[in-house]
């Protein structure tokens, strides 16, 4: 691990020490099944408010499944079944009287591949606001679009072509547009599923900077394959691995500096030093 990385980690550490224990979302005994296959087993994790939490682990260990469990996206897979609880601000989002649509409005999601709607840049952002019952005039909506694009560090690049298709942008811009449309509906948590895996290094850097900015106002949970990325941007890191039955389980969870410099588990150390996975 290089010196720069360590420096970054120690700076995040300083942030951490000032933080009080504020959990916004918490998984309790979470199991997700795909049909009869147990994909993740007994996940217990508390996510801190306005922090970036990275989920890392080898391929197929259920990182994305856990992430999608946080806003009930797994419900969209017909064979998926979830047991256990996910407590969002103390309330179980899997309780019977909870509407998954409401959950997803409060807990937004950015996907692995940039997937802007085949609509104009403006519409990409305004649509989410509109369907979620945005009350306001046309100029309010204009302001919301501008603010969201500014927050996503995209405004300067697209302000003159808001009526062009979102698909006309570059991959990195598309991903920032996806982030912009997510923050336009003012979620509490943003889930990011390998948001940089389809992007070039410069776009990746921009998104990472953006994540750091956003973490002032939002809680971010990010799945990443890139350990440098986890070390660079996250405050907390959760390491998942596979059991013998190929179910994903949470191996280690702690502040990023602790997990990367002083892992408690041998498997974690093996993974982050690149000995397996």
């Amino acid at each position, binding site marked *: 691990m290089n010196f720069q990385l360590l420096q970054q980690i120690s700076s995040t550490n300083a942030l951490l020490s000032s933080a009080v224990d504020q959990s916004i979302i918490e998984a309790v005994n979470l199991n997700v099944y795909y049909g009869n296959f147990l994909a993740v087993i007994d996940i217990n994790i508390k996510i801190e408010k306005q922090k970036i939490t990275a989920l890392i682990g080898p391929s197929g260990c259920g990182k994305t499944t856990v992430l999608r469990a946080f*806003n009930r*996206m797994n419900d969209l897979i017909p064979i998926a079944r979830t047991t256990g609880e996910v407590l969002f601000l103390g309330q179980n989002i899997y309780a019977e009287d909870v509407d998954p649509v409401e959950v*997803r409005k409060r807990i*937004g*999601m950015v996907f692995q591949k940039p*997937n802007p709607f*085949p609509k104009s840049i403006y519409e990409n952002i305004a649509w989410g606001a509109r369907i*979620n019952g945005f009350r306001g005039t046309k100029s309010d909506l204009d302001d919301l679009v501008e603010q969201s694009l500014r927050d996503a560090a995209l405004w300067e690049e697209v302000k003159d072509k808001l009526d062009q*298709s979102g698909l006309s942008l570059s991959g990195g811009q598309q991903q920032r547009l996806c982030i912009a449309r*997510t923050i336009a509906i003012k979620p509490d948590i943003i889930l990011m599923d390998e948001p940089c895996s389809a992007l070039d290094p410069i776009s990746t850097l921009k998104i990472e900077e953006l994540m750091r900015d956003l973490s002032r106002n939002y809680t971010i949970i990010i799945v990443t394959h890139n350990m440098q990325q986890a070390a660079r941007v996250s405050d907390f890191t959760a390491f998942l691995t596979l059991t013998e039955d190929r179910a994903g389980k949470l191996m280690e969870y702690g502040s990023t500096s602790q997990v990367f410099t002083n892992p408690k588990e041998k498997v974690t150390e093996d993974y982050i030093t690149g000995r397996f996975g």
Partner: protein
Amino acid sequence: MTIHENYPGTEDRSRFTEDIRRFEFQTNLPLRHRIGIIWRLVLLVSVIAGIIALSVLLISIINDSFGYAAIEYKVHPSSLSLNGRPLNELSCSEIVLLLEDHLTANRLRQLESENPFSTRSLEDCHETAIFEISKPKAVVTWSLFYSLKYSRELKIYVAQKYPDADLVFQNWLNSDFIRSPQSSDPLRTGILTAIMGSIYVIGIVIVVAFPVGIAAAIYLEEYSSRSFLHKIIQTNINNLAGVPSIIYGMLGLALFVRALEPLTSGAIFGLSDSTTANGRTILSAGLTLALLVLPVIIINAQEAIRAVPNSLRQASYGMGATKWQTVWHHVLPNAIPGILTGTILSVSRAFGETAPLVVVGASTYITFNPESIFSKFTTIPIQIYQWTARPQDVYKNIAAAAIIVLLVLLLTLNATAIILRNRLSRRLI
């Protein structure tokens, strides 16, 4: 330290490369190219065969739509005159006097009631006089090719064999043919009744089958769980798409013409009249054809909906959209070009469908245009079928002209739909 110790697993890989080196390759390049060329030729021949078949069809239709006809008159139009003035100098009111000389009072009253002479154009009066008094009749007709090649011989032949007949170059697809309703006189008959019938019927097919088909497809793709029942329904729809159209005709006869007669004859709306009774109406025909194309529309729409990338749905749900918002704002707009492609094909099929309409009860002979969906009807394919079944030579040419009308209408319909589809898909990019 060797490289293998640093990177576990690489020792296996190097062994694999050595193994590979032991194999010899016989590239066989000329043979592979030859096979490629043969297949390319096979594909090309298939295309050419298709083009030839289509060309033969088109040429034979055009060949029959134009050509010489020997026309005999009871009284030659040139000999028609009133007070020494020939027919083409007479005014409409004078022609009425001429008609009074030649026709029975009964026939004259009939003509007057069809369309009063005071309101008829001069051209119309002229035509009426020629058809009523001269009674032209096409005794023999020739195809376009024959007419062009043997025009001189034909003139001599007709002069000898039919001394009273005129040899006229007939354009069977003339504007009168398109504008006139059906008539028992082959020289006066027209396709307008059938065109109107076809348009009405297709209108009903589109209005019924398009929304129902899309709705069913959306439900099956987006809402229905993949249960046993879903599989049964899906299998049935797939099979129904292959059921022969005449079976649908039987269904239409039993269901729309017989069982739902009060509805399809318009009786429950108080519109029933004696001539359109017993449900053999445009509505019955349209509903029958709608049932016929429904499975195809559903299957095509399902394919189109399935082709919408899942990432779009995920993006929509991830923003807190409900299922319906996702379907309405993202799935449907992205699927609609594909859905329209399927619909265009299905509606074209319905447009040319004959068999089920014969069963449902298309009229063999009606001379008035349909006025509402509760009218009796005939359609262009039915009309073509009936004309080709007549023994007289001249109907062959009329049928050919009707086929051209059918093809032109089909092309117009498809072109409109394709332009619409292209505009819709351009909007999305």
